[in-house]
């Protein structure tokens, strides 16, 4: 690994030197925005016709390109927007902010793709999926609740963990191997209502990007993917509001300028109507029960001057449950402060401070009884980072930065609440960790056809006191513990993480791409169930837990057809992971101070092929059709010495076949139809092969772990959107009618191996065993009313 560093350094120095602004060069830079809202457009392209080259805006809508002094034709474009062309006589550095108008119809959107797609094909980034809020809204949704993560689950290589869950697995990885960021703050539990809804309110979101393998060097800390969710900045032009009334929740978003073109805000909230699931619970005391969630997104941004902008954003969400026995609250909160600063027209920087917290408390419904108690758990992050982009020249773009996060783990404590409580406080040892990384990368156009991105991330992880660390013997029995004082660094891990991407343009319509990445993961979730619960607790690497390491290589072929309206891609990948964590049989992961003794370590690997055919637009009869079809074949395996007798077994998310079809048909200006169909192999499970009667019950006897599969899962959803006839009015509205699981398939959520007495009245009678399938959702129609003004 070591020889790589000098190579990177020399490349970097060469690039820097090459990028010096000579007297013959000048820089064009600026922001690309939406003309109606002033919202920055991220990933919009700038194409220089004379040079057949270009660049794209970054995550803040900023672009910069340095060229020889001359006259150029610049084409600014973004999918779904009218392109904009400007002739520039470049003889000194200029700032050029461009506003693009959203195109009225889909067809206009397609005309601009030519320039853009050339750029996508040239981009040495692969295994990345980007979705905008609008695309997500068009997909038929469960209970009519539009959901970012459920939309992502329709992409190749991304699978839900269990029916209805917003937990997801990327390329066979565990859900905790996904880094979920909301405006750069980690979201540690992205689900509401036990995961049936994600915490992301689509109305407050600008776009989401999922890196499912080729993770850029500026990200780290997770093995499988990065889900980068960015909130809207707020309308800079006029005050506007939008909202919706659905069967489950109502939403309202208000956004607008506080100071025209300088300062804007967005405030977005939603709340569910209580008791959605309660009528099914069979409990007579529903009246006093509570079951709801709410969340709030807020963001403020201010442009101080041409070179400085600040963004403040926050999220707050809570779930509340209560029944006669127990009460529970859980939720995330995040806060992000960002400062964009231009050191020069070629040097963009962003400084971020993030705060994130996930916590829950669970207790008895009665608070004053002697046996009343409450159990808390929380995880808190404080992060600081500086990210820099140096637009050296048309051939080189350098990125570097430093990031540091301080984690504060309070995995669990329980205490009595009554004044005459019989409980003593129980506390799992707290722990603290500092996760730091520096990275540098360069994107280099080596020849007109060959582009490379190479980078290196160096990550450093420190466990810091105060904490108690248990020592374990080879049988995972605790033999003692060590105490560490406040601020004491008692354990350190570090890792070098090379990241490499290569892109070779075969023709104007096709390219091959390859990538390799190594990633380290220092914190993980103690989750032993497939769907997970809000009670699951994150825990850090420690003297007993080594960091997980993944190496992933991928190769892809990309080909566009029909004036680039049909995009096809094939990607194959192989991923191997060290220090993979699984849990011993019957692990006890909650309120267990020796939880590290429940862990077992091994290796895991996964491989697969992902094929996607994406139709951007096709005129069909009077309307326009778009959508995609994807097919994935993949396998994911684990091998842990103490599990399954040391033999390899299918990972919990190993689902070899996965097909998704997503279709959206704009029938007319007022009417659109959408459908999606998914099919996937059932997930693996362990089933009994025999039975033993012990103490009046049948105890199953199992053979191999995950040796059986649920039957295949498939489902069709449809929706119809009817827009009001008020296109010119200030107030607009639409109705969305959707049907989830149209053909009412009873997809397995779980299989239960049940037992009953063959003669219930006779205690001496034998037992009958049978299998009961539980399914969550039959056919579910729903309706949502949305408004905008």
């Amino acid at each position, binding site marked *: 690994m070591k020889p790589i560093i000098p190579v990177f350094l020399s490349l970097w120095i060469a690039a820097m030197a090459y990028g010096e602004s000579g007297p013959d060069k000048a820089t064009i830079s600026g922001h690309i925005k939406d003309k109606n809202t002033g919202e920055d457009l991220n990933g919009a392209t700038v194409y220089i016709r004379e040079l057949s080259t270009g660049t794209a805006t970054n995550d803040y809508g900023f672009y910069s390109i340095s060229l020889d002094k001359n006259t150029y034709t610049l084409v600014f474009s973004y999918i779904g927007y009218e392109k904009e062309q400007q002739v520039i006589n470049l003889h000194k550095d200029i700032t050029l902010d461009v506003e693009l108008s959203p195109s009225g119809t889909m067809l206009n959107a397609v005309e601009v793709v030519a320039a853009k797609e050339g750029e996508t094909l040239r981009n040495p980034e692969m295994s990345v999926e980007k979705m905008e809020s609008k695309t997500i809204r068009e997909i038929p949704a469960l209970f009519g609740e539009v959901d970012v993560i459920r939309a992502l689950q329709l992409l190749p290589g991304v699978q839900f963990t269990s029916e209805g869950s917003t937990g997801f697995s990327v390329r066979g990885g565990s859900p905790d191997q996904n880094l979920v960021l909301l405006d750069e703050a980690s979201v540690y539990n992205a689900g509401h209502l036990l995961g049936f809804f994600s915490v992301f309110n689509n109305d407050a979101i600008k776009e989401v990007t999922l890196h499912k393998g080729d993770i850029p060097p500026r990200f780290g800390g997770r093995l499988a993917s990065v889900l980068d969710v960015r909130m809207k900045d707020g309308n800079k032009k006029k005050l506007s509001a939008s909202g919706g009334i659905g069967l489950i929740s109502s939403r309202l978003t208000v956004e607008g300028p506080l100071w025209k073109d300088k300062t804007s805000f967005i405030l977005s909230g939603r709340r569910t109507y209580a008791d959605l*699931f309660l009528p099914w619970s069979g409990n007579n005391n529903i009246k*006093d029960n509570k079951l709801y969630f709410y969340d709030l997104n807020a963001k403020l941004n201010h442009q101080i001057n041409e070179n400085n902008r600040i963004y403040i954003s926050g999220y707050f969400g809570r779930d509340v449950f209560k029944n006669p026995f127990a009460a529970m609250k859980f939720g995330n909160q995040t806060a992000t402060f960002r400062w964009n600063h231009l050191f020069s027209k070629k040097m963009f920087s962003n400084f971020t401070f993030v705060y994130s917290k996930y916590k829950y408390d669970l207790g008895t419904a009665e608070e004053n009884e002697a046996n009343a108690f409450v159990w808390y758990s929380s995880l808190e992050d404080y992060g600081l980072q500086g990210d820099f982009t140096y637009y050296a020249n048309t051939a080189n773009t350098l990125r570097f930065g430093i990031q540091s996060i301080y984690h504060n783990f309070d995995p669990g404590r329980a205490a009595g609440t009554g004044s005459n409580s019989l409980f*003593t406080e129980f506390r799992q040892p707290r722990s603290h960790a500092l996760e730091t990384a520096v990275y540098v990368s360069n994107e280099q156009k080596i020849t007109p056809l060959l582009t490379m991105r190479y980078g290196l991330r160096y990550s450093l992880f420190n466990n810091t006191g105060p904490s108690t660390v248990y020592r374990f013997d080879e049988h995972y029995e605790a033999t003692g513990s060590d105490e560490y004082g406040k601020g004491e660094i008692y354990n350190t891990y570090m890792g070098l993480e090379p990241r490499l991407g290569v892109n070779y343009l075969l023709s104007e319509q096709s390219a091959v791409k390859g990538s390799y990445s190594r990633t380290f993961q220092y914190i993980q979730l103690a989750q032993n*169930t497939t769907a997970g619960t809000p009670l699951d607790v994150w825990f850090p690497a420690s003297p007993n837990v080594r960091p997980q390491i993944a190496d992933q290589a991928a190769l892809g072929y990309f080909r566009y057809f029909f004036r680039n309206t049909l995009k096809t891609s094939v990607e194959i990948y192989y991923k191997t992971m060290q220090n993979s964590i699984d849990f011993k049989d019957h692990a006890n992961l909650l309120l267990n101070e020796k939880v590290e003794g429940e862990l077992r370590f091994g290796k895991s690997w996964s491989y697969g092929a992902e094929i996607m055919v994406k139709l951007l637009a096709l005129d069909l009869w009077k309307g326009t059709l778009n959508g995609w079809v994807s097919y994935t074949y993949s396998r994911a395996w684990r091998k842990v010495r103490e599990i399954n007798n040391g033999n390899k077994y299918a990972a919990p998310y190993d689902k070899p076949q996965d097909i998704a079809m997503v279709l959206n048909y704009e029938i007319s200006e007022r009417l659109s139809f959408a459908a999606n169909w998914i099919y996937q192999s059932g997930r693996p499970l362990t*089933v009994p092969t025999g039975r033993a009667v012990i103490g009046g019950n049948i105890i199953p*006897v*199992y053979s191999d772990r995950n040796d*059986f599969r649920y039957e295949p899962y498939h489902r069709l959803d449809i929706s119809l959107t009817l827009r009001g006839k008020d296109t010119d009015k200030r107030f607009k509205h639409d109705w969305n009618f959707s049907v989830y699981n149209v053909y009412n398939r009873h997809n397995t*959520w779980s299989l239960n191996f049940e037992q009953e007495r063959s003669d219930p009245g006779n205690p001496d009678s034998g037992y009958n065993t049978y299998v009961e399938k539980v*399914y969550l959702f039959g056919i579910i129609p729903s309706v949502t009313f949305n408004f905008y003004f």
Partner: protein
Amino acid sequence: MKNIFIITLSAMITAGCSERVDIDLNEEGQKRLVVYGFITTDTMAHSLQLTYTADYFFNARPEPVPGAKAKITDDLGNTEPLTLTDPQKGIYHTSGDFFAVEERTYTLSIELEGERYTAESSCPAFSRTPMHIDLKYQPDWGKEGFYEIRCYYQDPPTTEFYMFNIYKNGTLLTDSLSEKIITDDVLYNGNYTNGIGVGYLDQSKEKEKLHPGDVITFQAGNIPEKYAQFIWEAQAEIQFSTPLFSGPPANVKGNITNGAIGYFAAYPTAYASTTYTP
């Protein structure tokens, strides 16, 4: 305690629909010996059951093992033979005056068809401070309310694993493994258990419904930790499973050698009773 909460929570959300299905299991056909028995400090004929495993869908009584030679020895060298009393069920008994002694280690050995199976269990000590119970009606729980059996006892400073059994008029209500309440004392270690819930009587069930004059007897056993783990694991395998709360199924870890399944335990018991008056 924690487990009770998780069960409550899962009951709240496992609201889906269910239907019986037929699935083809790759059944093993191989028979293994199943051993289950325990001895307590109560003076009585203690039982041991020996059966064979069967295919999972073998819907009949388990095949008994009547031909074994079984005995229990303690670390002082005393030997108690077990004699076959019910060949149809494979049940063996000690003599009627047998009882386990606290802090002695007992070894069960079984000889069957040339194979020898053994299991060892140390009988923990019991802190015999006064223990009493009362009943509290919880009208909000379930269809017709529950009676909560509340226990008052000074828990000793050592770590205990308790097993609770409930008798109504001398009949054991918690008569299967799935009905035992097993708890550690981590949350109240060394405290006075000032009315902690130790049993629940569902008034919508005839078996558990209370009538005036009914005598409720509470048995607390201070069981070895490994035996508590065994019952917890068995209960996890019997319980309703959901993707939310259930980990991967796995074999229940017993303490019988030579590939047999099951458990042999020795533990002390204590009792408290109350008579129901509405």
